[in-house]
């Protein structure tokens, strides 16, 4: 019997107090390639936006970097598929599924809570609406934020995840 543990399994109760859950074991693939190839793959070329859906989406991280996020499964299946599509172009496809834990925040107060520790404009009136993402600092942890309909995802390095939960609890 293999004991498989997600980074925040032990913080489920704490997360519940701030209307949050861990989304464990997501497939995450870092893709580096040119913009033309990215457009061909359906990746966003508009900075800080997301294409696709919950089953499989692509987050714009930089002019030549995207994060493909897919449902839990064998990441190599997704990675190999991307490799095949990018063959013969300048590219890199790297499995980073374990490199970030994912917290999903719910409830109407979630953006105000994030804004207590993040300097970005997280107000819908300022353009923070479903379909956008950003790399930023949340308190003192580097994160990727992704806005979903009625939820916000926080991607954070697992080693910072406990700290981040404690920090969000302190400002909630």
């Amino acid at each position, binding site marked *: 019997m293999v004991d498989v543990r997600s980074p925040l399994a032990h913080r489920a109760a704490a997360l519940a107090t701030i209307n949050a859950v861990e989304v464990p074991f997501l497939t995450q693939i870092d893709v580096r390639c040119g913009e033309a190839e990215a457009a061909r793959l359906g990746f966003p070329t508009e900075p800080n936006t997301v294409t696709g859906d919950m089953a499989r989406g692509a987050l714009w991280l930089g002019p030549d970097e995207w994060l493909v996020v897919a449902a839990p499964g064998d990441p190599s299946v997704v990675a190999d598929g991307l490799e095949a599509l990018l063959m013969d172009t300048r590219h890199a496809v790297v499995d980073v599924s374990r*490199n970030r834990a994912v917290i999903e925040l719910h409830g109407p107060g979630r953006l105000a809570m994030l804004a207590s520790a993040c300097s970005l404009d997280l*107000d819908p009136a300022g353009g923070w609406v479903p379909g956008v993402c950003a790399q930023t600092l949340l308190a003192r942890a580097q994160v990727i934020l992704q806005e979903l309909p009625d939820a916000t995802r926080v991607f954070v390095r697992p080693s910072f995840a406990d700290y981040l939960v404690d920090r969000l609890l302190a400002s909630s």
Partner: protein
Amino acid sequence: MFDGREIRGFAGDTVASALLADGEPGGFVSPMSRRPRGVYSSGVEEPNAFVEVTAPWFEPIRPATMVNLVDGLTVQSRAGVGILPTTAVAPRPARHQHRHVETLVIGGGASGRAAATITGGRVLIVDEQPVVMDPPPNAATLTSTTATGIYDDGYVLCYQRDGGTDVFHHVRAARVVLATGAHERPLAFVDNDRPGVMLASAARTYLERFGVLAGERIVVFSTNHSGHDAAGALAAAGAQVVVVDPATRTGPATERLRAAGIEVRLNARVVATDGDPALTGVTVSAADGQRTAIPADVLAVSGGWNPAIQLARGLGIGLRYDEQKTCFVHDGSGPEWLTVVGRAAGNVPASFPLWVVDEGDDHEKYVELQRDQTVADVAEAVAGGLTNAEHVKRATYIGTTIDQGRTSGVLTAEIVNRLLGWAPGAQGPTNARPPYTPVPFSALAGPDSGPILLDPIRVTPMDAWHDAHGAVYENVGQWKRPRYFPRGDEDMGAAVARETRALRTGVGVLDASTLGKIDVRGPDAGVFLDRMYTNRMSNLRVGSIRYGFMLGLDGMVFDDGVAMRLADDHYVCTTTTGGAAAVMDRFEEWLQTEWTDLRVYCTSVTEQWSVVAVGGPRAREVVAAAGADADLRHDAFPFMTLRDGTVAGVPARICRISFTGELSYELHVSPWHAQHVWDSVMAAGEPFGITPYGTEAMHVLRAEKGYVIVGQETDGTQTPEDLGMAWLVNTGKGDFVGKRSLVRSDMLREDRKQLVGIMTDDPARVLMEGTQLIADATIPDPPAHMLGWVTSSYRSEALGRSIALAVVEAGRGHIGNEIHAVAGNETVPCRVADPVFYDPEGTRRDG
């Protein structure tokens, strides 16, 4: 409770307004001369009435005008100086909030509200008062909120305190409107600091906002129509009012007062006050010098108005002197996104130019109430040769107060101008810098304080196991790594001796997950790494591992680690735990700025992999028993190679790397499986007495082998040659970062400090790390010539004695020679040794 006495008030009252309502203008004393003082203002400019708050929160000092009454509030008067408690007190809870708006209006008065109404997008009004009247419907408001600083590009910090938790708002605005109003200026005359003397605007504010008539017989000493208007309002509320006006001519304000039957004495000045100590009367001098006494319990003073543009001055805006208004106003300069409106923009009353009343002793005319500084003190500074208001400020401490010179600043500058025979306005007040009002450190820190949240604590997936097994931790960057695992009442020495013994004689296991890891991919990956490392990485065989140094441009060792080649176009490089981010940044910097033609991408995968390092003579048996599917025999799986396979039923990259000199296998596994693999290794190792060990044992083991730690043996001044590792430098392969610096003349000096071992003559003596090394047994008189210093020092269980590493001038040429370590006033005799203390032939590495 105020000074042990119960006071009552209404919602919205401040401590100051409640005291005045109680008929108590005084109750305070000045900090230096201990002169009795009373409430002087109604806002942030208060220089007299300070309190310490002890309940329901603690705050060492705060103006009584800025403390709102709440149930159970307990305050004590403070003489201008706060006293920090000797025991810990809970700070006011505080949090931060970031807000983005198109327009931020600072000040919710009429001008601010008007500016807010005509603007689009998100609008925020902040005001330091608890209420903003009739806020425009398109605007959000924050009350009891002070903008404490305006910074570049519309970044404004606002400190809010109206509930249980202070909020520090970080506002970013496309446009900032400064509607901060103006502050009334006092006048300098004899005994102008007596309780009962206050600003005319304050007397009017207490009447109109708090419903408190500050006195029954009020003299108003006013140079401008706002003071006159205050007199009219006070008289209408039932006070008996006399106005003293230095102007020679009547104006509309005077006419209005006279029409209402209020006495106005023109061309007159207040020259003295009486009281015991609170005010009972004032002495007025008429134009002909004739003096009359007027009974009074309040003397309301208005010497003109200063636009409150301190916040904008931090942005470098200019001021110009306005002769009609006798004050300094914004000259219109400043960033495009800043607009100044209303009284802050200079819409203040014209004023008769009077600052100091000539009659009487200058030693009795107070300029700065909170610092007890008088006109005579300013004159003394000027007589001492100071002509600049900034210098006078620093000589007298005028304006270094809690109110930051709001009442005293312009007055002081004009006194200096006058003493120097300069025209009014020849020089203005001292500069203003954030914060606009004091901000507690607790509010600045917000939640980012205390042992848990001061700085992120990074932990590995096995942290709960380490904690449950008694790990004593060590900080490595932001990581918490187990330093050792004491058993029973073991101290560190005993635990480390046991852990290192296990490694040398049996088997041990280390959580090495914190090592930095960078995935390097692309057809030019080998070329790129050849340029980053001193040795060649492009000819590494797939499946092999090579150790390498990275240098700075200065040729000094920057970081070390191994490169693992996974495919022709694919490497994973490891870095030191603390150097991971810096190495990643350096890789990206060179690729993005210098070598954009290289087809290489780098990705941080530090946390994609957890590492369980199994080492010791029994390591092979344990890894096999833990279910490794690779052929672990040395011939099939040699040192510095890797195998992708499985361990304990989960995928694992098994690497034969050793930082201890013993047979070792690093198991690189998914963090989701890391605890499972750790548990499997512990179970498989149980028959062999497997011992989890920490960073301290690791340090001892590697020091026995003379392996350097970047950052311990190095401090940014060591080359590979200095460390005796010139074999790592391949000068024939082409250019690499730092190569050119290695042939600078300084790098070739023969007396450079070199890495050596140090053995104390007394094997029980363990030197302190950092110990200085000298040639002779007696410490010479300064300046003593220091040959080098100890970089690492431990007791070695394997050698049964102490060992140390050190950097010593031309040290490799002195191996075997005597050297002396300085320990306080004594020296410890030692010998220079080869830095490889244990198994110099490397026989143990392959098991």
